[in-house]
């Protein structure tokens, strides 16, 4: 070992500190904007670089509206005999994990309380906590909107371009290339479409975001007609 050849009295041992490394990464990479309720240093403990944290935060932003609607959908059945408490528990559990991944630990903590209430079958506690969780998710979505670009999208001029992109998307889905599917979906979403088509494109986007392949294929078939 090279250490054997170095003078012992000049050696200095330094343990890398995860937080220091996280801060160094933050400085070197993409500029992560200050967002209330989001601790980027916590997120950077789990990723080697800020670009990955940023992309995960963008994915989280794209999904949070849908996840919030799902929580509300379950919550609306809370007074019925068929309240899907297990599905609710798993949903808030997922929200907890997602939130912690990007450093939104306060929101993650709130989702954890909802999860434990569901685990312990505490319906009254779920009734109190869930509206707060939904409000906080709305607030977080609003705060994270700084991550998305607000440039106005151009109206698509050549529908052949849309057909071709849909075909590429279809083939990516068939070969289970989710990275390629995401990239092509982003290209599709970079345009605006006539209203009747826009609705279907937005629906396709949600199905791609949620890896709902069968539904995505159906959307593509309709759009390609």
């Amino acid at each position, binding site marked *: 070992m090279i250490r054997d050849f170095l003078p012992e009295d000049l050696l200095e041992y330094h343990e890398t500190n995860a937080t220091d490394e996280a801060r160094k990464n933050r400085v070197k990479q993409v500029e992560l904007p200050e967002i209330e309720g989001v601790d980027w240093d916590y997120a950077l403990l789990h990723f080697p670089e800020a670009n*990955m944290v940023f992309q995960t935060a963008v994915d989280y932003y794209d999904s949070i509206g849908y996840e919030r609607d799902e929580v509300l959908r379950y919550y609306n059945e809370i007074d019925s005999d068929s309240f899907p408490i*297990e599905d609710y528990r798993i949903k808030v559990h997922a929200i907890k994990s997602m939130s912690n991944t990007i450093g939104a630990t306060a929101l993650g903590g709130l989702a954890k309380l909802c999860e434990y209430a569901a685990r312990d079958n505490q319906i009254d506690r779920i009734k109190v906590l869930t509206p707060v969780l939904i409000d906080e998710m709305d607030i977080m979505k609003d705060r994270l909107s700084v991550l998305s670009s607000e440039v106005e999208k151009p109206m698509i001029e*050549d529908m052949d371009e849309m057909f071709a992109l849909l075909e590429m998307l279809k*083939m990516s889905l068939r070969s*289970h290339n989710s990275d390629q599917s995401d990239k092509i979906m982003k290209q599709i979403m970079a345009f605006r479409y006539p209203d009747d088509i826009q609705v279907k494109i937005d629906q396709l986007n949600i199905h791609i975001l949620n*890896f709902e392949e069968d539904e995505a294929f159906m959307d593509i078939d309709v759009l390609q007609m």
Partner: protein
Amino acid sequence: MRKILIVGDFSNDTSDVNSYLEQHFHTQLCTDSGKIVKSMLKMYVPDLVLMDIDGFENVNEDVFEAIQEYDPSLPVITYGRELKKQMFISYYYSGQCRHIPQPSREIIIREICKEFNMNADAIINAIVDTEKKHIIVVDDNPVLLRNMRNMLQDKYRVTLATSAAQCMKAMGQDSPDLIILDYEMPVVDGKQTLEMIRAEEDYRNVPVIFLTGIADKEHVDAVLDLKPAGYFVKPPMQTKIINAIENIFLKQGE
């Protein structure tokens, strides 16, 4: 890289032809519909079109028309039964289209290389780099799935699944070398998914790493009782999970 548009019926699986061509060319698959081919030609601008005409019927003449209208000098190589070629014989008279009646990997590559004045032997004999190990990640949460893909895709081929059903389907299409499995999923949970995997002879020994969002003792014990190759509390740290995966592959290699 030369661009090849591969036209055919890919409703059941993506083409075997594509799997070896994409190592040496930029390829794009396309359904055998005239309307779709027309749009793809404009967008993709291929250097050559390769068509599997075995499934073609008279209605597919619009595919030939679309190509001819786009660029009558764009080379087209078709393969399939001679009978099918005869259905569209007029498109071969001009010399734009050439037909391979009995295609093999070598013959297709040679025909393509002839078109591009490339050294076919070099491509046919090329030693392909050892393929990346294939990992299937199963989690009902799409954000976490993408997170895992971003962490792993530089080193591995990653397929994502949001449920046990998607996982089993993905396994049937492309065997995994390792599975990362969320313990808590709705409908069919991680434990039940593992039982389904282990019930298949071919996948009995595929190592499984569990991901769990709950770190209490009872939960961890339940996970460990399943004797996974490893487990992590979510969200996992990239370096730690990659180290764990590499150790599993190393032990398998011993």
